């Protein structure tokens, strides 16, 4: 599998170390243009945009191309972020992956499952990492922000945050930052039933990072990603502290709670099922976002006393 940190940061000595080039698909749209400005302000090295019909123009000094093949050809970028409406997502993602993109951040919400599955298949074939759809993106605080998250909640540090929810990723990271737990990476899994990088896979891309003291997993009802992760933590004997939060304990069954993926069928997807599997993996689950740093502090303390 492609190495996420290497894609995002690179290796010391490389001329684009910590300045990896990024392409924005849908750069002139309302959402795409706003967040291109925000990402540029954060210091993300946006080298190209794509909007069919606007090739040759510029946005905020960033050259616009007709398609991904041209944009990748001109810049050699391996990272792309997509801001197109959901019904155009499949073609945009296929174009990106076929042009050689190795890390694709898929922002759109409401992508049909069939299209998400097709992108997952193609990404496996091309050995590329897809983050999302319906994700806030990925941020390495202080280095690179590829997404729609605000900058203020995130501080550089040594805790990895994986989240199925956007605003909860901000909320929990903000709580961590206030408690002096900076973040080495914050990774938005996405709120859909099908994720380009499911929780386990995202966990595996960051687990061996040298800059990680602990992991915070922000989950929610629906599916069995948390259960699978808990089992994976047990099976692979991951020994760094992991703390979880799960939203949706009070949600009724068979009602879709905002996210396409947040729905309970019978016991499949229920919070109880997730909490009990986490208990087996010795992962404490916070009752509210503000409790996360306290639980993490407790786990880190225990680790030190071992």
């Amino acid at each position, binding site marked *: 599998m492609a190495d996420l940190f290497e894609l995002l940061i690179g290796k010391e000595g490389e001329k684009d170390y910590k300045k990896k080039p990024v392409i924005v698909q849908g750069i002139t749209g309302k959402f795409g243009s706003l967040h291109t400005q925000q990402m540029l302000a954060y210091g993300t090295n946006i080298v190209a945009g794509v909007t069919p019909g606007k090739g040759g123009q510029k946005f905020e000094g960033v050259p616009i191309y007709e398609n991904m093949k041209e944009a990748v050809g001109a810049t050699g970028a391996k990272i792309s972020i997509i801001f197109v409406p959901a019904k155009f997502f499949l073609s945009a993602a296929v174009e990106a992956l076929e042009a050689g993109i190795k890390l694709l951040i898929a922002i759109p919400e409401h992508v049909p499952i069939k299209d998400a599955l097709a992108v997952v298949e193609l990404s496996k074939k091309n050995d590329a990492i897809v983050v999302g759809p319906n994700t806030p993106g990925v941020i390495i605080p202080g280095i690179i922000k590829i997404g729609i998250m605000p900058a203020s909640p995130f501080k550089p540090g040594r805790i990895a945050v994986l989240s199925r929810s956007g605003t909860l990723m901000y909320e929990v990271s903000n709580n961590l930052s206030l408690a002096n737990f900076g973040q080495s990476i914050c990774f938005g899994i996405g*709120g859909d039933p099908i994720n380009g990088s499911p929780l386990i896979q995202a966990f595996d891309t960051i687990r061996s990072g040298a800059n990680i003291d602990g992991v915070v997993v922000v989950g929610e009802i629906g599916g069995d990603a948390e259960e699978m992760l808990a089992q994976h933590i047990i099976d692979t004997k991951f020994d760094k502290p992991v703390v979880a939060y799960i939203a949706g304990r009070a949600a009724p069954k068979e009602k879709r709670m905002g996210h396409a993926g947040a729905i309970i069928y019978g016991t499949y997807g229920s919070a109880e099922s997730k909490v009990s599997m986490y208990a087996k993996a010795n992962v404490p689950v916070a009752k509210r976002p503000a409790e996360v740093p306290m639980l993490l502090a407790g786990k880190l303390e225990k680790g030190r006393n071992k």
Partner: protein
Amino acid sequence: MRLLEYQAKSLFADYGIPIPKGLTSTTIEQGRKEASELGFPFVIKAQMAVGGRGKAGAIQKCHNADEFELKYPEIMQKVVKGEKTRAILLEKMADIKKELYLSLFLNRSKRCYTVISSSEGGVEIEAVKNQIIHEVGLGMVDAKVAEEIGKEMGLKDKALAQFVDILQRLSKVTVEKEAELAEINPLAVLKDDSLVALDGKMIIDDNSMFRHDELRKFQEVSELEERAEKSGFSLVELDGNIAVVGNGAGLVMSTLDMLSDNGGKAACFLDVGGGATTDTVYEALTLISKMKKVRGILVNLYGGIVKTTTVATAFIKAYDAKLVDVPVFARMSGAEADKSKEMLKGSRTKMFDTIEEAINAAVIEVNKNG
């Protein structure tokens, strides 16, 4: 979108999956006509988007006109797990030898479709024994795989051939209609070894609806839900009296949990989406003002890129329009929070630094007012 039994069965019929003869009605007058067309005896089945209808008495046998006059209105009035009867299906009874289970569903962690089958169907999936599970990629099942599954279930000869045919047709309807789930439970083996789908359940991927105009006729949304959808909100109506509003599905769910932990009851889940503007928040308040049961509004906004003043402006507009007459308990974090507090001073919106404080105040106030 979860299809009702008769809707799923109409799709099954379109794809050549055998179903019993049945007719659907929403009034007893219409029902009487259908009863005489169908002929006694038959089964009266409440059409509602929930499992466990049989146990709840929402499915009953009917042998004659007297029974019909009694049972039809009774079943029309049924509420099971909060779900009301939306229509009534009258269906011919079948001569059943055995009940099987068959479904195709989207396995989220494995990111593929999965066939689940069992020779012991007729009970809810959690209770189905001897489940046979096959992963089938993007959902298409060929004759070879279908036959393997049928044989594993112990089917032979005519029943096996029919099963192979039905499974392939079920796979086709799942893929073409973009369903997350298509379930036949029970799939009955009749005395003559033919198979028939006695029940049907399908869940269509809501996000694919833009390319399925033919399924729009099955869509049933309340006026509020329709308006919410137009504004890009997610709205789920709930039983309590405190409306919960926020930006981001996770954040609103989390607020709902904390409210419930503190003894409060949510009247709705309302996610205004990532990019809240003055207009969207105003529209959210308009929707809430239409919910009679609401005694208070709890707002949890994590600003960031969105300025909290954008939201505060919406509230002031709403007060000016006399839209909001219940107390509002708000936590707005992010840009310009202090300015927002100043703007809302003296209004019915109480601002709090943390969501925990806002929840406590909301629960106390709403309980005090009864």
